C-alpha cells in the first residue's frame, strides 16, 4: 500500500500523531528540560526553576496558542470558502481581520492605557472583527451575488487599511512601532494564565461548527438547492459570520493578525482529504491548521540562533505559493 493510500485510510490518525510529535518537539527544542520538568511545570510549578519557568511561561503557552489559533483560523477559512463558494475567501479577504486590526490601531494610538494592554487588545480585536463581521452580514442581506459580497469584503478591508494608514501618519513613533510589530503576528504574547480564557472562547466556537456540517454540505449544491433541503440561509449566514468573527477576533486578539492560514489550510485539506464532506473537512482543518502553526513555531525556534523570523513572514512564505497554485489551477 502506497503512502497516499495509507494516508487516505488513516489520515486523521496520522495527522494526530504528527501533531503530537510536533508539539513535543516544539515544547522541548532548544531547552534542557525533560518530561519530569514538564510534569512539574503543569502540576507543581516552581518559578525559581529555570527549566520549569521556560516551559510554563513560554513553551506551553506558545504550543497551545499555535494549536488553537491554527485550528480556529483554518475553520474560519473553510466556513467562508463554502459560504461564498470561493476557495480564495477567508477572514483576511473578507475584511474581518482588518476590522480587528483597525480597532487595535485605534486603541494603540489612543491615549487610553487600557487599550494598549493585552486585555485591551483582546477587547478591541474581538469588537473589531464582530463589527466588521456584522457589516459583512448586513451586506449579505442585500447582495445576493457571492462574488459581489467577496468584493464588498475586500473593499471593507481596503477602507480599514486606509484608515489605519491615516492613523499611522499622525501616530507617535513608539505607538507606530508597537502597532507595526503587532501586525507581524506573534505566538509568544499569550501567557499560561490566559490559556483558559482563549480555550474558553475558541473551544465552544469550534464545537459549534459541528452543527454547521449539514448546511455546509447542502450549500455545496447551491443556495437554491440548500434552501429546498430546508436550510434557512439567513440564519445559516448569520451563524457562520458570528462564529467566524468570534474565532478570528479571539485569535487576532491573542496573536495579532495571522496571514494566509485561513486561506491556505482549508485548500490543502481539500487536496489531502479528497472529500467534500464537511464533517471530514472540519476535522482535517482543525488538525492541519494546528499542525501548520506548531510547525511554523518550531521552524522559528530552529532559526533563532541565525535570525528571528516574524510569524507572518513564515506563514506568508508558505501561504502565498498555495494561493498562486490555486489561481493557476483555476486558469488552467
Amino acid at each position, binding site marked *: 500500500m502506497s503512502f497516499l493510500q495509507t494516508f487516505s485510510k488513516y489520515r486523521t490518525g496520522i495527522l494526530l500523531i504528527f501533531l503530537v510529535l510536533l508539539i513535543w518537539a516544539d515544547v522541548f527544542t532548544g531547552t534542557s528540560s525533560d518530561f519530569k520538568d514538564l510534569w512539574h511545570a503543569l502540576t507543581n510549578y516552581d518559578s525559581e526553576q529555570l527549566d520549569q519557568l521556560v516551559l510554563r511561561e513560554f513553551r506551553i503557552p506558545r504550543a497551545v496558542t499555535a494549536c488553537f489559533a491554527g485550528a480556529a483560523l483554518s475553520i474560519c477559512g473553510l466556513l467562508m470558502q463554502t459560504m461564498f463558494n470561493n476557495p480564495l475567501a477567508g477572514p483576511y479577504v473578507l475584511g474581518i481581520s482588518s476590522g480587528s486590526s483597525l480597532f487595535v490601531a485605534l486603541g494603540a494610538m489612543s491615549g487610553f492605557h487600557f487599550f494598549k494592554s493585552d*486585555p485591551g487588545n483582546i477587547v478591541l480585536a474581538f469588537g473589531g472583527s464582530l463589527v466588521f463581521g456584522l457589516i459583512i452580514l448586513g451586506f449579505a442581506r442585500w447582495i445576493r451575488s457571492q462574488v459581489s459580497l467577496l468584493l464588498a469584503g475586500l473593499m471593507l478591508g481596503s477602507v480599514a487599511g486606509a484608515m489605519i494608514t491615516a492613523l499611522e501618519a*499622525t501616530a*507617535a513613533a513608539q505607538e507606530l512601532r508597537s502597532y507595526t*510589530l503587532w501586525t507581524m503576528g*506573534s505566538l*509568544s504574547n499569550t501567557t499560561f494564565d490566559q490559556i483558559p480564557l482563549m480555550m474558553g472562547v475558541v473551544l465552544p466556537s469550534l464545537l459549534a461548527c459541528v452543527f454547521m456540517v449539514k448546511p455546509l454540505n447542502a450549500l455545496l449544491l447551491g443556495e437554491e438547492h440548500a434552501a429546498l433541503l430546508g436550510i434557512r440561509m439567513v440564519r445559516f449566514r448569520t451563524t457562520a459570520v458570528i462564529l467566524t468573527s468570534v474565532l478570528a477576533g479571539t485569535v487576532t486578539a491573542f496573536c495579532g493578525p495571522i496571514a494566509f492560514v485561513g486561506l491556505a489550510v482549508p485548500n490543502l485539506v481539500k487536496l489531502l482529504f479528497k472529500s467534500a464532506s464537511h464533517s471530514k473537512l472540519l476535522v482535517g482543518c482543525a488538525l492541519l491548521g494546528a499542525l501548520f502553526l506548531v510547525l511554523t513555531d518550531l521552524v522559528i525556534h530552529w532559526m*533563532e540562533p541565525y535570525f528571528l523570523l516574524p510569524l507572518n513572514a513564515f506563514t506568508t512564505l508558505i501561504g502565498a505559493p498555495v494561493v498562486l497554485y490555486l489561481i493557476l489551477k483555476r486558469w488552467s
Partner: protein
Amino acid sequence: MRTLLVVSVVSLFLYSCGTRHEQKKEGYTPLRLEFAKNFKLDSCASGIRLSIGEKGGKTWNFILSEKKPSHLASDLVWIRIPVENFLTLAGTDVGMLAELKEEDRIAGVGNGKTIFSKYVKKNLRNGKIRDFNTWEQIPFEQLMQTGVNVITYSNFGKDYPHAKELEKAGIICLPILDWKEEHPLGKAEWIKLYGYLTGRSEMAKTYFSRLHTSYNNLKKEAQTYTTHPTVFCGNQTGEFWFCPSGESYEAKLIADAGGNYIYKNTKGTGSLSLPPEKVLTTNKETQIWLNPGIDTRELLHKKHPRSVFFDAFNQGNVFCYSARMNYYWENAAVAPDKVLSDLIAIFHRKNKTLHFYSKLK
C-alpha cells in the same frame, strides 16, 4: 556615432576639469568636530560646507552662507543663514534650538502632542507656531503659508517626500542623523550644526566644550566605584524583545556610568531583537532594568505579565524616562551629562535628584 563619441569624451573632460577647478578654488578647511561622525563642517570661501551622511552611505551636501555663492557646484544646496523659520520634525532639534535660545525660529512642528518645550507649547496655543499634526508629507501650500525655510527631519533611510521640489521653492530639507551617533557626546555635538544654522556658532562651541568637561568629570567619578551592577534594557514588543546593541549610544552611557550591561559584547550600533524567552533566562537575576517604556510597575505588570519573573522588577530596580518621555527625547541628546548623572545615581545608589529617569512605583 563617431561624432557622438567625440562629443561625449570632450564633455566628460570639460566637466571633470570644471569640478576639479571648483574644488581647488574653494579650498575647504575642516572645522573641528570631536565626536560626531555623521556630519562634517568645512570652511570655504563661499561659506561653510555641511556634509551629512554616515561613512559609506549617502551624503547630502549644503553650503551655509548669508548670500548665495556666485558659483555653486551641482551637488551643493545653498542654505541661507541664519535660518529664519524651521519646521522641526526630528525631536532633538527642539532641544538643540532651545539650548541656543533660538526657539523663536521654530515656525512649525510635526506633532504638538509630542512636544515638551513650554515655549513651543505656549506658541502653539497662541498660533505663532503651527502644528502640522504629521511627520509625513505636509502640503506645499501650508509650508509656504508658514514661511518655513528649513525642514529638519530624522532620516531613517528615506528622504523627505518631494525634497527636490521643495528645494526649488526655497524650502530645504535637512536630514538629521544624530540618532546614528555611537557616542553620547557625538549626538550632542550636533548642537554645533544648529549653531551655524542660527548664527550662534560660538555659543554652541562654548556649550559643547562645557558639556564635554562635565561628561568627562562624571565618567571619572563613575570609575571610582568598585561595584558594577548588572543591567538590562528594553521590553517585549510582539515576538521580540528590543534592547540596545553593545556598541550603541545607550550601551556607551551604561558603561561610562559604571554599569555592567548584559549585552555589552554584542555588535552593532542599533538595537537588538532577541527572543523573550532567552532574555528572561539570561536576566532573571540581573540587578537593574532600564527603559521598559512604561512608567509604573502596575502598568508594566499589566502589559508584560512576565515582568514578575525578573528579580529587578521584584526588588523595585526598574527605571525609565517614560514619566517625562517628551522631555527626554527633546533634551537628552543635548544633555548627555545629565543622563550620565542619572545613571550613576541609579547604579551606585546615590541619593541625587534625577533629571530624566524615575524609579517605577
